[in-house]
């Protein structure tokens, strides 16, 4: 019977002092092994993390979510993780969705699992329409760049096996890592499934999300990554 302790949950945090406490409380209480990657925060993120029974890896400077994820993968693998997951620090994700993402790994039907906000009408409706538009657009861009039609290219809730994580090598530091991740999955012929998840949007998390302008930057990053690879 797979134990939650064998699941290393990577929580990337860049100035998430407002919501980190609750998220860590939840994860630790559920028995997961938690790894916090503090991506050069200059608020109380690390202090708060240190109050919990979690492992902390701290980037002295901010590198970006892609770099933070790769660091998380490296650290978790080094700790002997059998299954790895990523979970947002801003309180948008829910524990039962994490468990849902781990299920296909345990069942042996997938190597990598991506959460998707667009698989159930209820989940779709809870996304603010501007954000929904942006995300739909990113799915199209992702498809053009990777050849893979996902329903949600940018959900931070993911899970993978040790073997999958060991093969993945992300070079993108910024948000364009999501596309590179899909590339890596396809390159190594890993089995990918999408699992429906619900995301709780709050004013806080919406403010922290990507604006339309930033999306242009991310697109340019995708394209440069492809050209200069």
């Amino acid at each position, binding site marked *: 019977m797979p134990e939650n*302790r064998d699941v290393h949950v990577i929580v990337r945090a860049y100035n998430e002092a407002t919501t980190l406490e609750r998220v860590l409380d939840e994860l*630790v209480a559920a028995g997961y*092994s*938690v790894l916090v990657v503090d991506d050069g925060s200059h608020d109380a993120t690390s202090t708060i993390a240190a*109050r*919990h*029974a*979690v*492992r*902390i*890896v*701290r*980037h*002295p*400077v901010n*590198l970006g979510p892609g*770099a933070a994820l*790769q*660091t998380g993968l*490296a*650290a978790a693998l*080094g*700790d002997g993780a059998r299954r790895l997951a990523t979970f947002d620090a801003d309180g948008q994700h829910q524990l039962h969705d994490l468990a849902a993402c781990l299920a296909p790994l345990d069942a042996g039907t997938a190597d990598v699992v991506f959460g998707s906000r667009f698989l159930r009408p209820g989940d779709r409706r809870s996304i603010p329409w501007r954000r929904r538009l942006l995300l739909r657009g990113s799915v199209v861009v992702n498809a053009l760049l990777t050849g893979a039609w996902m329903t949600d290219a940018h959900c931070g809730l993911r899970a993978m096996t040790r073997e999958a994580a060991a093969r993945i090598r992300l*070079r993108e*530091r910024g948000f364009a890592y999501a596309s590179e991740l899909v590339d890596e999955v396809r390159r190594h012929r890993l089995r990918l499934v999408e699992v429906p998840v619900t995301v709780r949007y709050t004013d806080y998390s919406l403010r922290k999300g990507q604006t339309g302008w930033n999306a242009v930057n991310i697109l340019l990053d995708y394209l*440069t990554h492809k050209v*200069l690879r």
Partner: protein
Amino acid sequence: MTGIQVLLVAAALFWIGRYLAKLRSTHTSRLLAVLAAVVAMTLVLFPEVTVRLAHLFGVTRGVDLVIYLAIVGFGFLWLHLAHRIRELEQKLVELVRAQALAGSGAAAAGPREREPG
């Protein structure tokens, strides 16, 4: 000499002077820099050369040829710089990651060994 020729030759000489003054540059790059400046000054002082070259390539004006070559040159330069910057960023990320992992391994115990609260 016309006004523009004086300006461009002065700029080329100033550029050489500044570049050579940087002790960090290698012999090869200094040689290339001097060569580039000499070629530039020659073309500036003897514009007929550019006209002849242009005609060779089917371009009417010497200046047009210089512009076309400059555009291509800048394009390559941009790609080169973008590539270099990306390489530097990669190195930076790897360095920061190595430091972060080394630091955390020593300082923090694994989740099972820590006392909660």
